């Protein structure tokens, strides 16, 4: 039995479907349709994220603080805020970033870059120390290796936690490159490598599942809203 087509009359659905087919055409080989879709993607996504950045960040955090009266255009009923001279600092840093466009002034562009790197280093040091170092160690050894429920020892849970502890320690031993990995130390490092391989396999399996889910989603979109078969 041949499924009945019920083509969509929605322009948005048609544009999405045609662009999807253009991208899929790359499976055959590189061709003008794919290149067209690829260049549309570059132009649209660059403009989209610029616009989002302007209206969600630059407008409230910079423009409205430096030119409070501009708030009347976006929120006529809201009271006009006060001028905030502190906003001149990020404005100056932002303008310095644009100095990179002029070769003679490009060295000034390093100042905002230095601020961005300093912010990243400051936040990262504290955040990684807390959540990815201390909390992970706490989660590995802090929960106790002999969990019980209603006075009964959960030996399977204990075994699992012991394996997690052993796997984490041996994985870390594998990363230590300041000592030659041989003898008992080498065997622990080897065990760590095997644990890491299982981890990479699980991550790969999850990544494949994610891509396949996206693929199924695209086919559902083509067969459902566009062709009306599903």
């Amino acid at each position, binding site marked *: 039995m041949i499924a009945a087509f019920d083509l969509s009359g929605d322009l948005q659905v048609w544009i999405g479907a045609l662009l999807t087919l253009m991208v899929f055409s790359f499976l055959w080989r590189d061709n003008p349709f794919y290149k067209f879709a690829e260049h549309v993607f570059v132009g649209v996504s660059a*403009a*989209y994220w*610029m616009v989002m950045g302007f209206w969600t960040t630059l407008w409230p955090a910079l423009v409205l603080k430096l030119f409070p009266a501009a708030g009347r255009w976006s929120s006529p009923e809201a009271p006009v805020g006060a001028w905030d001279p502190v906003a001149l600092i990020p404005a100056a840093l*932002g303008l310095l970033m644009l100095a990179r466009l002029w070769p003679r002034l490009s060295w000034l562009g390093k100042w905002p870059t230095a601020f961005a790197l300093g912010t990243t280093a400051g936040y990262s040091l504290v955040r990684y120390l807390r959540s990815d170092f201390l909390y992970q160690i706490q989660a590995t050894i802090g929960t106790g290796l002999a969990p019980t429920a209603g006075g009964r020892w959960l030996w399977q849970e204990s075994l699992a936690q012991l394996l997690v502890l052993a796997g984490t320690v041996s994985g870390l031993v594998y990363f230590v490159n300041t000592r030659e990995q041989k003898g008992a130390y080498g065997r622990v490092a080897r065990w760590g490598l*095997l644990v890491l391989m299982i*981890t990479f396999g699980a991550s790969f399996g999850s990544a494949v599942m994610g891509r396949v889910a996206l693929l199924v989603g695209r086919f559902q979109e083509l067969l459902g809203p566009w062709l009306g078969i599903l």
Partner: protein
Amino acid sequence: MRDVKQRVPQIILTVTALLLIASAFVARPGDGSAPAVQRLLAFADQEFATWFSILTVFAFLLGGLNLVATHLVKIRDRGPDRYYSAVTLVSFVVVLAVGMAKLGGPPGLQGDVTAPGSWLSAVFDAVLSPLHATLYSLLAFYIASASYRAFRARSLESSLLLASALVVLLGRIPAGRYLTTWIPEPVAFLRVEELSLWILRVPNTAGQRALMIGIALGVIALAVRMIAGVEKDPRSGGDGS
């Protein structure tokens, strides 16, 4: 002058990072009578993240201008891909105009830029979202051929990687679960969905924690080197000057 070019970026980097690190260890001041240092640290903690976001938008602006300049040069030089460059430029300018003018949404510049009915949300639904999903879904095809080449079980390590990936994959799809329904209840832990869960819960957790702790140590070391000015790139702006 050379000193200014070299040292000012490093001073900005070090002072910014140290203020943020110190602010994590100092309580927020309750009122205006708190010591000046405490108020300065609270100010840094509160404002620097916003300034960073503002700089990100300026970086987008710089990227956008660069994109326009690059493609204008391609069109001017009548290169082989000039028509595609024109496609990029037209897409860029149209979406920029639609978004900056907040077309289709509430009147004037009022309301959310992606409010229902706005042209920018239509661009997202009709163009950006399908293209993004389809480009990523293409990897499903290439990942299959790549994994065939990478996973040929030549050693214990690659065999473990292959087995782990297969079990996790099979454990998440109905067909995979169906393969091992015949395994009797007393040894149900050998069923593929149970094995998949066990891999994710035990060895995967151990490996992820080892990776996270290792990465954390690396990030902390890098941050300290950057703050101390030992790392070359941040101090020189990446071009070694």
